[in-house]
């Protein structure tokens, strides 16, 4: 946890917390987990109103990057600032919504969709729910099309619905920056469509989005910039990439049989070392 405040020119001139500061500004991020060096010096700036897709193969460090940007993982080197404020207690946490990759394992005690979404109304130093919590949580559930399932146990919902509950949890505090980690991985088609509609509406309202994706898919029309990671370093940052061959065609099946041209290569990539 060495997040020192740097006197970066842009944030210093704008002043911390000013609306002109980038939504996310990261410099020289290095992250090591259990001795393996996952991220190797990443700079990333997401300006207000941008919709940035973060692409890369399994093990390239996409999830690790977003997890360190929102403060889940400590960085070994580098600085992260959210809306001009270095990561820490003073970040305007109510302006950030984080959607994790869906965890299929349910927790020990059952909890309803409403209870899970309500936990999104707690942030920063706000550790008690406001009076309007129920209405706010129901509103967020409504925005992902699950208002009628508020009192159902999350474990009883389908995978796609569980993912939408996690999105509603992030939306509950009405953030202007959304960070999503593979939001549609393994999600059924109706939920994917509901999700794309929700995101489109958010983008129209000016929400800044950083989304980890395996493929652009239904998101392609929304994306304003693409960042590609390879082995923990940034190899592309700019215009959305044109997919190879027919990969971008609607209905293209992205599930391929394994060819095993390089046996064991995926394991090597997972450790974050260049092969």
């Amino acid at each position: 946890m060495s997040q020192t405040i740097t006197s970066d020119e842009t944030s210093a001139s704008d002043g911390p917390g000013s609306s002109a500061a980038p939504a996310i500004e990261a410099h020289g991020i290095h992250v090591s987990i259990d001795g393996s060096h996952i991220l190797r010096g990443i700079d990333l700036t997401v300006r207000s109103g941008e919709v940035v897709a973060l692409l890369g193969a399994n093990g390239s460090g996409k999830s690790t990057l977003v997890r360190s940007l929102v403060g889940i993982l400590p960085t070994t080197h580098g600085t992260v600032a959210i809306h001009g404020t270095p990561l820490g207690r003073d970040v305007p946490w109510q302006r950030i919504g984080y959607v994790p990759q869906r965890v299929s394992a349910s927790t020990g005690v059952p909890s309803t969709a409403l209870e899970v979404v309500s936990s999104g109304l707690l942030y920063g130093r706000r550790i008690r729910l406001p009076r309007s919590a129920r209405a706010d949580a129901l509103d967020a559930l409504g925005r992902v099309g699950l208002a009628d399932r508020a009192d159902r146990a999350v474990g009883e919902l389908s995978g796609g619905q569980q993912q939408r509950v996690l999105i509603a949890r992030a939306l509950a505090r009405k953030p202007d920056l959304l960070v999503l980690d593979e939001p549609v991985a393994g999600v059924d088609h109706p939920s994917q469509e509901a999700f794309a509609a929700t995101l489109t509406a958010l983008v129209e309202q000016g929400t800044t989005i950083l989304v980890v994706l395996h493929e652009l898919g239904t998101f392609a029309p929304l994306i304003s910039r693409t960042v590609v990671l390879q082995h923990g370093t940034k190899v592309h940052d700019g215009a959305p990439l044109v997919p190879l061959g027919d990969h971008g065609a609607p209905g293209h099946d992205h599930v391929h049989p394994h060819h095993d041209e390089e046996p064991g290569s995926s394991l090597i990539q997972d450790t974050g070392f260049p092969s």
Partner: protein
Amino acid sequence: MTTFFTELSGMLTDPFMRRSLTAAIIVGLTAPVMGTYLVQRKLSLLGDGIGHIALTGVAVGWLVGSTMGLVKSDALAIPGAVVAAVLGSVAIELVRERGRTSGDVALALMFYGGIAGGVLIIGIAGGTNANLMSYLFGSISTVTITDLWLTVGLGAIILLVGVGLSSALFSVSHDEDFARASGLPVRGLNIAIAIIAALTVTVSMRVVGLLLVSALMIIPVAVAQLVTTSFRRTMMVAVGIGVAVCVVGLSITYWLPQSPGAMIVVLAIALYAVVAALRPLLVRRRTESRDPHPDILDDVTLDQGAPRCSA
């Protein structure tokens, strides 16, 4: 029938029994509140670990009491247990937070060190293992007025934190990563849970004993979640069950010369068995009408003339 009420009023006017019942109700209220968070965090056995460490605290309190020449050498046993349990549970939480594989071994060292240390230190203090038995298996009938006030005070703290901060504690127990990404004081909340878990163990110590504390934290929650779908309701039902088994179990031992702690835990397990057996009847109507994945389209259809089987 008259004899039943005479007996009952006899029990309720007995000053020892009144004190014991008050302690039992406090334990029945607090243990399941704490247990709900522990079950959600998949730390069901944490209470057990804290209990082991608390035994060393009991012995240390005893040692301090006897060196200071106090009239009652066990006067400091409960304060000793409180201090040891709080220190131990915070240490466990810090080990857990680091998430190292060696954490498992560190926990085992603390658990067994707690028991062994307790037995050795009580020997040094001039006591015997028999002195420890009342802490290991509970001795609710020996609850003094001082013990009772300590129990009431600690119980109030547990309920104040456990219920008052329930949303934040739920958030951090349900999805710690999300809580971190929301800027919540995750470490502070985790340590709060560790401390009130430790206080719950020491409060329950006199009623069910350190070896059975965990049962009273976990079993009511296990029974409750057989029939509930929400976190809040699970906690409420568990508290109801906790109070009921504590009061009924203790009352039974007013007439039957048995260990109250063991009676309470056996009752709770029996209740679990009954509810688990009746569960299909209790929740059948709810699950029958529910397709687990109602919004998933059937992508395999029999439109092309495949015969439908007749079942």
